[in-house]
């Protein structure tokens, strides 16, 4: 951090000012002039919170994608299908047993199994042929999409939120002051906050696992140089299978989360595949912190965009990607 400040003092200053403005916008009571110009503070705060929580969801999808890419150089374009598969499994489990938590566990295990099968049956046979693997994942995503359409139909499904998470919670953030002088606090859906907290915990756990454990050390070494790692006697195929299973399982969990937040239907697979593509392009391929930063930026841009410039929300996301590609083609937090 301090090295960044030393090397780019101007950028650091701009970043600090931007963070300060953002904090002021979130915590201060807006003066009437600003409310007239921009709109109600409640709307803004809701958009920010929606953006951050959506960013959490994007992070869950994109981190698996970026982990698999980083280690195996495999652009898994069937990642969206794994997301949707996890969502459908979660829906089936939660309607059958009524347990929300159980649906996460089963979705994780089943999508991880699919991931293991994919790695063992398909990708191991064509190791090192990036383009061909990508083609295969495109084919797989078409087949999966049609199989899921066959099995589940074109309806919308929504995973039932458990009772203990239904309802809003009052946050200590003032949205406005009533004429009587009484402050109005922001009310926000509990379930979204819980899910966001969970995705932060998963992200931190992943970071710790990657940087503090032996298996994490192996994975980081594999990202840097796969061949030398294999030559040192590490059973790299096993590591590949584990990482693919974990990345796929994360996509499955994200599917249940997405099914609770929004809804599940054919086409969501492509939407989330694209979201994770943009997130990892912005954040940097193969980097977990990059995925987190990219997810936050894209989530916020999408939600703020849909509130303030509704027609062109998607273009804002795209412009961010173009800007990153133009300035830093390897992504914001990529090392190379």
């Amino acid at each position, binding site marked *: 951090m301090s090295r960044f400040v030393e090397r780019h003092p101007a950028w650091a200053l701009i970043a600090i000012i931007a963070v300060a403005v953002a904090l002021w916008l979130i915590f201060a009571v807006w003066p009437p002039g600003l409310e007239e110009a921009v709109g109600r503070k409640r709307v803004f705060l809701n958009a920010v919170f929606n953006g951050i929580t959506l960013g959490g969801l994007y992070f869950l999808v994109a981190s698996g994608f970026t982990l698999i890419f980083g280690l195996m*150089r495999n652009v898994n374009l069937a990642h969206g299908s794994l997301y949707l598969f996890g969502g459908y499994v979660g829906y089936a489990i939660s309607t059958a047993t009524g347990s929300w938590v159980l649906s996460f566990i089963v979705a994780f295990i089943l999508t991880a199994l699919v991931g293991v099968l994919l790695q063992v049956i398909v990708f191991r046979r064509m190791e090192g042929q990036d383009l*061909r693997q990508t083609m*295969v994942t495109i*084919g797989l995503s*078409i087949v999966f999409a049609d199989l899921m359409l*066959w099995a589940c139909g074109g309806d919308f499904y929504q995973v039932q939120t458990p009772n203990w998470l239904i309802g809003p919670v009052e946050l200590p953030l003032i949205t406005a002051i009533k004429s009587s002088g009484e402050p109005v606090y922001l009310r926000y859906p509990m379930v979204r906050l819980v899910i966001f907290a969970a995705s932060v915990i998963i992200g931190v756990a992943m970071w710790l696992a990657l940087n503090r454990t032996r298996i994490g050390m192996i994975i980081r070494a594999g990202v840097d140089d796969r061949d030398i790692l294999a030559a040192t006697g590490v059973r790299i195929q096993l590591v590949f299978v584990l990482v693919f299973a974990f990345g796929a399982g994360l996509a499955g969990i994200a599917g249940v989360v997405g099914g609770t937040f929004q809804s599940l239907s054919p086409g969501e697979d*492509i939407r989330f595949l694209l979201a994770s593509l943009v997130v990892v392009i912005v954040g940097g391929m193969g980097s977990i912190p990059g995925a987190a930063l990219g997810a936050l930026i894209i989530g916020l841009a999408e939600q703020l965009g849909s509130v303030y410039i509704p027609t062109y929300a998607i273009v804002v996301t795209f412009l961010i990607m173009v800007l990153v590609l133009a300035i830093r083609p390897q992504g914001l937090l990529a090392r190379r």
Partner: protein
Amino acid sequence: MSLAQDARVAARPATMAQRAARTWPEINNPAAWVVAVILLIMPLIANGFFLIEIFASTLILGTMALSLMFLAGYGGMVSLMQLTIAGFSAYMVAVFGISGNANISLGWPWWLAVPMALALATAFGTLGGALAVRTEGIYTIMITLAIGAAFYYFTNQNWAIFNGHTGINTVATPHFWGVNWRADIPFYYVVLAVAALCYFAVEYLSRAPFGLALQGVRDNPRRMAALGFNVNAHRIAAYAFASFVAALAGVLQVWNYRQISPGSVSVGACIDVLIIAVVGGITRPIGPFIGALIFVLLRTFALDFLVRLGLDGNRFRLLIGLGFLAIVFWSSDGVIGLWQRWRQSQRRPAANQPGRGRGHG
């Protein structure tokens, strides 16, 4: 990178190409003449449905896939935005020309609207290409896919120019010299002429200095840069040419259906173009047309075929996906590669047996 590697083998007979550089390879090939004659007299053989729904559609889709084949086969850049460029050009024809949505269309005559659409779509594709060449290999796929998706969502949300998800309907088609060029037979010949033009242009470019330099860039960008070639300029120029081809196909597409909507530029459709090119084979310009014929035949008849087998007729995409997977698994050069391998095995049946399971190791 196996796709590019096999392309290298196909382009290997350099000594022959040098001697025969001035002639077209088709001239000495009787099969090419037969195909050309059949295509020319097609209106005598096929009725309106087959002529337009099968053969004109094949040629249009084949031209789009041809632009991808040019980029992927000669430039080593797999671009998923070729359909997006075609769709953009189709939209521009509808916006500048005459259509049922009078509040959007500017009502220009077709001979003004079409060059405008071609120019804008080529500029669009070149810009996208300039963005995509900043990265390599699989990154190109992702970036072009993201561009395609962004365009799809944009057309869905923009009502001022693209008319949202309803799109633009009843687009006017050209009518001059007393001929309605959208009537079945004239339209077939227009499509055939454009497709043939693009085919021979790609064929010619692949042997012109530019195309050879592009193939050099595909095989070893670093060495080409050391030789003094501007690698990125060659790549962007390739994108510009491919965009023009795709834009031509887009114009034909909008004249064919007389309407354009976001559904025609969806992500699935972008991927279809890749499937067509890969199934047909991306090392030679004829590949995309073969792939397009297979795709269109499947799209049209899979329903009847599946129902006759007692299966659910809606599983057309499953069939396409499985076929694509099989092709990618067993032949890196699509149907052409299978055909060539079969021909070789016919030629020397004994020597081939051990080499069968070699794959791509």
